[in-house]
Structures are given as structure tokens and as C-alpha cells.
């Protein structure tokens, strides 16, 4: 860190590292200098002139967003001259601004509105006719209202630097300047909506939210995105039990304000008209709606019957249900039903990684490491497409810390743009290319290695062995697919492991084996769609499915129970980096119940309630804390932010079944079965092109 220098702002004696921008130094000390174009983390623009300040011995006012603090500087940020300058700047910005605040989406949370309110540019000396340009729709997600634009270029930089997409530009000059999309009249990009959220005014608005509500009419519920495993916090704007907006402007959560299209807009599956809202039972070959009590009673009787006869159960859990639900489900399966046939769709080899790292601590990469580490090695994964937030972290790391990025992938990836070395290697054969990188990697200060599902089983061990011989601190991340894929493994939703990576010591069938077993008597599927591409061999098996939608699996079910989505429940989920975060209920769909409650009710119906304990997320989490190593974090800590869990640092001692590990390689516009029910994901052209 640079030496501290002393200076004063508004008479306050302050200290900051030499070279720090005045606007940042002021902010650190609680002094706000207004700005539109300055945005921390992105390149400097000095376009808006809002941040003018007086500096003693400088003849003119200076822009605080590009001026660096120096020893003895005397800065004044709220003098009459400064206020007059800001007022004039605002008057200038409003020259062509339509002042349509009453109908503008941004009204109430608009930075321009706030500034005009503060500095009072209520009258204008401009009498010329305002230049009007009609609003444009650039994609189902992005709308542009040129007259409102104040040309701060935040959106251009966010797209260019933050996303590495460069889909936005500025055409024309002066008062005629316009933000323009990359394809003439429309956008082809990630459709992430970063440009919309970063817009200080209502120039860029989102197709999902525009003209839906006024900002102050919403409640804001911070929860975790239920799509990929990056675990981004999304703050849902809820009005009348309906989610109308997703963003993370308060920068809470591991992701700061980053969100991709899924976190920002793909909450809409939750309000799909295809949601199941009543339990159904198969009568004469057709599913008919019944009451909850009838459905639960049928399941309990049948399960008890199968259990009494010693019939074969199969239990398939989900990659998206909460830790509490996963824990509760495996407990019910193992202790309640007496079966060890429990599994979920495995998407990454965390088990072998944890085993290979036994005896070490702190070697699993945290989300923050992708931003802070000196070097990142990406193996066999297209991060920008499959794990957009990790890719965003890496780009920011490159921008801010000149991090060295190494990409060993089959095809070109966006990381190539910032990579020190990019190596193309056949999928599955990536490790063969590593020796060539050894010298460069060993010269780094520290390293994060992140790998996809092509590295599994012994390959994970080879990779860790390689990393351990580099002689530098290395941390690892095994990529998994969905919001709680990691939690599913941690909670023992696999036959060979009990919660906390303890070998179960009992034989149990995998999904593939369950589906192929002719003698399966009952199959219980919670939030998963294993029959999407596979047929169930046991034609007479009694199938219970808990899901949001009538999936292929639900269509085969004998009893279907409508479950609540991740945005409709409380609980915790664990992201790909092992960070536990809390889900908070944002809305509700009539007729549904959370999976935790459903499992609890089945247990109660079977008389197993005393064994299972209450189906409250807090109670179950308390049990998880006690029995799962690494989860002994107080719930309040999880509530305020992500806490990394650290599983066993001893041997796991089971075969991780690499043959069962298959990532579905969902891209930005798909999200397993769930993605099919998101209107937004299906409406953007990039989504259609990528399918």
C-alpha cells in the first residue's frame, strides 16, 4: 500500500494512501461527492462534471473523480461555488431530459432526481425545443429511452470491462449522442441487465420491470438465486406477493451487484401459469387433483406397505432444494424408510477433491479468491457461459490486480481475452497440457484452480498432486451445476455418504441403478427430473414426485405434490465454493408447500414425526450444525452473509463414482428443467440460438 498522506476535506484532517482519488478518499471518510459517470471498479470517464470540488491553490474547480489526493491538499466539497457549479451541471444535463419522472421506472430511486432535489436546478435558461428520440427495444430484456440518457457511459463500461461483451457503444456527437446496441437495432449479448441496473437514470429499463410498479411500493427480499452454483444474492422486489424485480443494488452477498440474466430476470418461472397448485393422484391412468390429506394418506400407506414387505425404495433428491430439505430427506430415507438407495444428479467431483485435500485446511477456493488471487487456472470449463459470476470475478481481478489467467479448455472461451496463456486441449485430456504451464504457474504468488466435470475421479487426484508440487499456495474449486448441488453432497444425498462426508458403509443404488431396477417398488423424487431422458424400468413402481411443474417425471408419477420454489421458502443453500447462504421467502404460490414441510407431513402421516423432529428450517439447521462438520456456523452469521463451510480434512474413503458425474452444462440461457418454464430465458434470441 502506498504511503499515507494528510490532507483536509471541509476542514476535516484526513489521511489516505497517496494516489487515491479524492472522490474515494472522501467517501471513505463519510463525505459524499456526487457523481454520475464515476463508478468504482470501472475506468475513469470524467464526463459528467458533477464531482467538481474546490482545491486550494488550484485556480479552477477540479473533478474529484480523477484528481488524486496529495499531501497538504485542502479540499472543499460544499462551498457556494461548488453548489452553483453542480446546479449548472444539472441544468445542462436537463437540457434535453424529458422530466417524465411521474411515469419513469426510475422515479423515486433516480440519481439525477436526487441531485436535482439536492441542488435545486428547478429553472432552466434553455428555451430551445428538446430533442426527442423515440424509445427503442433492444431485446426482450433491454429498453432504451434516449432522451432520459445523461451520457455517463456507465453502461458502456459495465458491458465492456465488467462483462467482456462490448455490446454497447456511443454513436453521434454532442447533444445528438446516443447509446447504441451492437447489432444496429438490437442487442446480442449476455442479456445480463448490468447496463440497466448501473444506469443512474431511467434511460435503460428492463422488459420485466418497466411500468410495473413504483419502487417504493415494493418490499425488498434478499435471497439466493436458484439457478447456477455461483450463489449470487438477488434482492427480489416483491409487491402483493408477486416478484416484480430482481437486482442486487445494495451489493450484499458474495456477488456485489453482479447478476446474470438468471439472477436478475429468471425468477419468472416461479410465477409461471404452469405451476402445480394441487396434489394429484393417478386414477384410472389419469392424474386427478385431490386434497393434501388424501395425497399424503395415500403416500404414507403405500410407503408403509412397501417398507413392511421389505420392498425396494428409491429416493432421488434435488440440486436446488435447501440444505435443510436435503438433510431431512436423507434422514427420512435412511432412518424412516430404512433404505440407502438415495442419490441426486451429481454434477461435479467434490468428493474426490475433498478427499485429495485431506490433511489440509483452507484449500477450497472461496468466491472472493477468484477476485483476490494472483493467478487463476481454469480447466475444462467455459466459465463466462456456465458460471458467469466466477468469470466476472476473474475479469475484475485482471482489471484491478493484473491477475494472470490461464485457460485450458477445448474451445475458445471469454477468459482468453484476459488470459496470460490459453491452451486448447481435448475435453478430458486437459491435464496433459499442464506440464507446459508448470514453470509459469510455479512463479505465481498464489493460485486458484477451478475445474469442470471433465476432471473427475483419479484426474482430480492428479490435478491436486500437480498443484501441490508447484510450491505455492493453491486453492481449488470443483464446479457443480446448481444452486445447492454442493449442499446435496454435503448433506449426504448420495448412497455412499452420510451428511458431512462420512462413509455410510451401506450399499445403495445410484439414480441409474434405481431407474434400471425392475424390482423397484417405490420411487420418491424430490425436485428432480430423472425421467427426462430415461425410462423407469420398474413399470409397477409406485412413484411420488414433488415438483413445481408437471415434468416428464411428474407425468409418470402416481402421486404428484406441488412444491414451493426456492423463492418461496426459507432455509440455506451452499454454493459451489462451499459458502452457506440463507434463502428468504419472497412470495408464495397458492396450494404449494415447501419440500421440507411435505417430507415432514409424510413422516407425520407414517407416524415417524418423533424420529424426524419438527420440519422447521431453523430446527433442522440446528441439527445440521451439530452433525455436519463445517456447518457449525451460527445461523446469524449465515444470515448476514456467506460463510464458507470446511468439510472434513480427513480421508473420505469412498469411491466418488466418477461414472455418475455428469454436468448438464447449462449455458446462460438454460437452467435444467426449471429454465424451460422461464419466459425470459426462452424469449431472448441468444437463448434460442444456443439451443
Amino acid at each position: 500500500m502506498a504511503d499515507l498522506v494528510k490532507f483536509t476535506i471541509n476542514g476535516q484532517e484526513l489521511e489516505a494512501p497517496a494516489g487515491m482519488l479524492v472522490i474515494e478518499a472522501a467517501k471513505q471518510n463519510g463525505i459524499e461527492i456526487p457523481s454520475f459517470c464515476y463508478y468504482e471498479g470501472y475506468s475513469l470517464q470524467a464526463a459528467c462534471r458533477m464531482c467538481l470540488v474546490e482545491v486550494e491553490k488550484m485556480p479552477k474547480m477540479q473533478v474529484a473523480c480523477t484528481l488524486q489526493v496529495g499531501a497538504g491538499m485542502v479540499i472543499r466539497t460544499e462551498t457556494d461555488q461548488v453548489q452553483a457549479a453542480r446546479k449548472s451541471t444539472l441544468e445542462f444535463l436537463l437540457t434535453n431530459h424529458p422530466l417524465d419522472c411521474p411515469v419513469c421506472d426510475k422515479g423515486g430511486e433516480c440519481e439525477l432526481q436526487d441531485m436535482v432535489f439536492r441542488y435545486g436546478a428547478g429553472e432552466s435558461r434553455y428555451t430551445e425545443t428538446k430533442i426527442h428520440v423515440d424509445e427503442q427495444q433492444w431485446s426482450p430484456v433491454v429498453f432504451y429511452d434516449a432522451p432520459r440518457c445523461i451520457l455517463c457511459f456507465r453502461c458502456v463500461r459495465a458491458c465492456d470491462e465488467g462483462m467482456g461483451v462490448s455490446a454497447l457503444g456511443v454513436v453521434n456527437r454532442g447533444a445528438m449522442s446516443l447509446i447504441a446496441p451492437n447489432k444496429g437495432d438490437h442487442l446480442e449479448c449476455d442479456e445480463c441487465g448490468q447496463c440497466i441496473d448501473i444506469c443512474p437514470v431511467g434511460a435503460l429499463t428492463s422488459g420485466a420491470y418497466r411500468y410495473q410498479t413504483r419502487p417504493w411500493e415494493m418490499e425488498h427480499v434478499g435471497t439466493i438465486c436458484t439457478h447456477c452454483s455461483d450463489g449470487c444474492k438477488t434482492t427480489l422486489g416483491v409487491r402483493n406477493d408477486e416478484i416484480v424485480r430482481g437486482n442486487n443494488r445494495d451489493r450484499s452477498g458474495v456477488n456485489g451487484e453482479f447478476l446474470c440474466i438468471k439472477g436478475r430476470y429468471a425468477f419468472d418461472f416461479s410465477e409461471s401459469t404452469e405451476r402445480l397448485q394441487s396434489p394429484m393422484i393417478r386414477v384410472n391412468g389419469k392424474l386427478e387433483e385431490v386434497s393434501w390429506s388424501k395425497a399424503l394418506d395415500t403416500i404414507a400407506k403405500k410407503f408403509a406397505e412397501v417398507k413392511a414387505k421389505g420392498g425396494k425404495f428409491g429416493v432421488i433428491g434435488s440440486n436446488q432444494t435447501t440444505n435443510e430439505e436435503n438433510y431431512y430427506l436423507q434422514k427420512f430415507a435412511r432412518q424412516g424408510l430404512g433404505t440407502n438407495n438415495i442419490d441426486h444428479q451429481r454434477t461435479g467431483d467434490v468428493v474426490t477433491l475433498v478427499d485429495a485435500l485431506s490433511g489440509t485446511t483452507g484449500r477450497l477456493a472461496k468466491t472472493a479468491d477468484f477476485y483476490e488471487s494472483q493467478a487463476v487456472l481454469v480447466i475444462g470449463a467455459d466459465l463466462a457461459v456456465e458460471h458467469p459470476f466466477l468469470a466476472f470475478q476473474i475479469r475484475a481481478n485482471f482489471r484491478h490486480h493484473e491477475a494472470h489467467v490461464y485457460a485450458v479448455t477445448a474451445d475458445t472461451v471469454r477468459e482468453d481475452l484476459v488470459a496470460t496463456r490459453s491452451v486448447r486441449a481435448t475435453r478430458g485430456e486437459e491435464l496433459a497440457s499442464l506440464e507446459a504451464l508448470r514453470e509459469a504457474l510455479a512463479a505465481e504468488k498464489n493460485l486458484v484452480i477451478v475445474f469442470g466435470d471433465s476432471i473427475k475421479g483419479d484426474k482430480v487426484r492428479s490435478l491436486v498432486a500437480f498443484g501441490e508440487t508447484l510450491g505455492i499456495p493453491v486453492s481449488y474449486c470443483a464446479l457443480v451445476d446448481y444452486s445447492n448441488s454442493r449442499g446435496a453432497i454435503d448433506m449426504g444425498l448420495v448412497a455412499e455418504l452420510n451428511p458431512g462426508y462420512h462413509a455410510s458403509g451401506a450399499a445403495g443404488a445410484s439414480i441409474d441403478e434405481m431407474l434400471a431396477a425392475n424390482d423397484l417398488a417405490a420411487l420418491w423424487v424430490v425436485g428432480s427430473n430423472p425421467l427426462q431422458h430415461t425410462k423407469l424400468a420398474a413399470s409397477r413402481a409406485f412413484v411420488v414426485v414433488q415438483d413445481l411443474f408437471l415434468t416428464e417425471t411428474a407425468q409418470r408419477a402416481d402421486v404428484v405434490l406441488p412444491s414451493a420454489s426456492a423463492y418461496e421458502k426459507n432455509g440455506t443453500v451452499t454454493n459451489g465454493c462451499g459458502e452457506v447462504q440463507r434463502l428468504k421467502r419472497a412470495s408464495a404460490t397458492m396450494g404449494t408447500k415447501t419440500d421440507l414441510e411435505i417430507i415432514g407431513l409424510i413422516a407425520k402421516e407414517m407416524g415417524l414425526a418423533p424420529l424426524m423432529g419438527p420440519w422447521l428450517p431453523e430446527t433442522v439447521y440446528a441439527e445440521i450444525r451439530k452433525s455436519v462438520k463445517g456447518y457449525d456456523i451460527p445461523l446469524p452469521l449465515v444470515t448476514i452473509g456467506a460463510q464458507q463451510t470446511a468439510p472434513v480434512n480427513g480421508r473420505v474413503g469412498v469411491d466418488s463414482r466418477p461414472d455418475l458425474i455428469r454436468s448438464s452444462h447449462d449455458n446462460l440461457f438454460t437452467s435444467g428443467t426449471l429454465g424451460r418454464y422461464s419466459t425470459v430465458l426462452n424469449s431472448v434470441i441468444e437463448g434460442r440460438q444456443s439451443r
Partner: protein
Amino acid sequence: MTFSPELEARFEKFLTKYPADRKRSAVIPMLVYAQDETEAITQELIEEVAKRCGVTPLQVEEVVGFYSMLHKKPQGKYHVQICTNISCLLVGGAELWEQATKKTGIGHKQNSADGRISLEEVECIGACSWAPAVQINYDFYHFVTPGQLDKLLDGLAAGKKPEEITEVQKVSC
């Protein structure tokens, strides 16, 4: 997209003139000379220049939109540019401009029906010492009088080349 061998050679020079990682510096000169050959800046040209300079088409589009001497509409064969900035204005630039529009019946950035003449009211063209100044394509005319402007416009309209209008002396740059 292919260009004449001369232009290709010129492009070659531009691309080697700037540091290897600053190929985008060649965007402006490439566009300026290419538009003379292609008459206007087409989408195809934008994409070609973007490809050659290693930038996105949108980044080229930004440059085209910013600079007034880059034009997407074909201009007349003779592009008559009349300066009305301060030095020329003081000595009759505005009157020259008015005269030109009246005489030709066309306005700012418009073309005559036969496509021979286009007019543009330009900002300072750096000929203040010889104001009022007029520029036709790449050639300058100094201390232009209303009479000379008449002769120039009449001559061009009658099908003459600027160099054939001997009454008015041009200054090549």
C-alpha cells in the same frame, strides 16, 4: 471486401504504422480513404475495417457517428464545404453559405439532383488566415468572393471539373 491495389497498399501502411496492439488507430484514416472509393461508408465497409483493425463493428460505428467528415450517405461528385466559423463569419462566410444554398437549391449535407454538387456548412477548416475559405473535396479556395463562388457553382453545375474553372484559383493541400 476488396479495394483498389493503391488503397490496399495504403491500408497496409496504416496497419504497420501503429504499434501492434494499437491497430485501432488505423480506423479513422482507413475510413477516410475508403469512403472516397466506396462513395459512402457502408455496413460492409464498417465490418471490414473492424475486422482489419481488430475492433468490433460497433466501435467503428462510434467513430463514424462522431466525425462529420465520415459520411454514410453518398455525397455529390464535388463536395462544397463552406466555413462559417468565426474568422470566415467576420468576412462574409455566412453570406457565402446563404448564397450557395439559394443558388443550388440544396441545404446542409444535401446533394443536387444530378449528384454533381453537395453542400456542407463546416466548422473551422484551418484556413483562418485566408478567410473566407471554401473547400471542394480536398482542395481549398482562399479569400472567396461572392462572384467567385458563383463561378465555381455555375461551372460545377455545367459539368466542368474544378480545375477547368480557371477564373478561380484553387490551392491544393
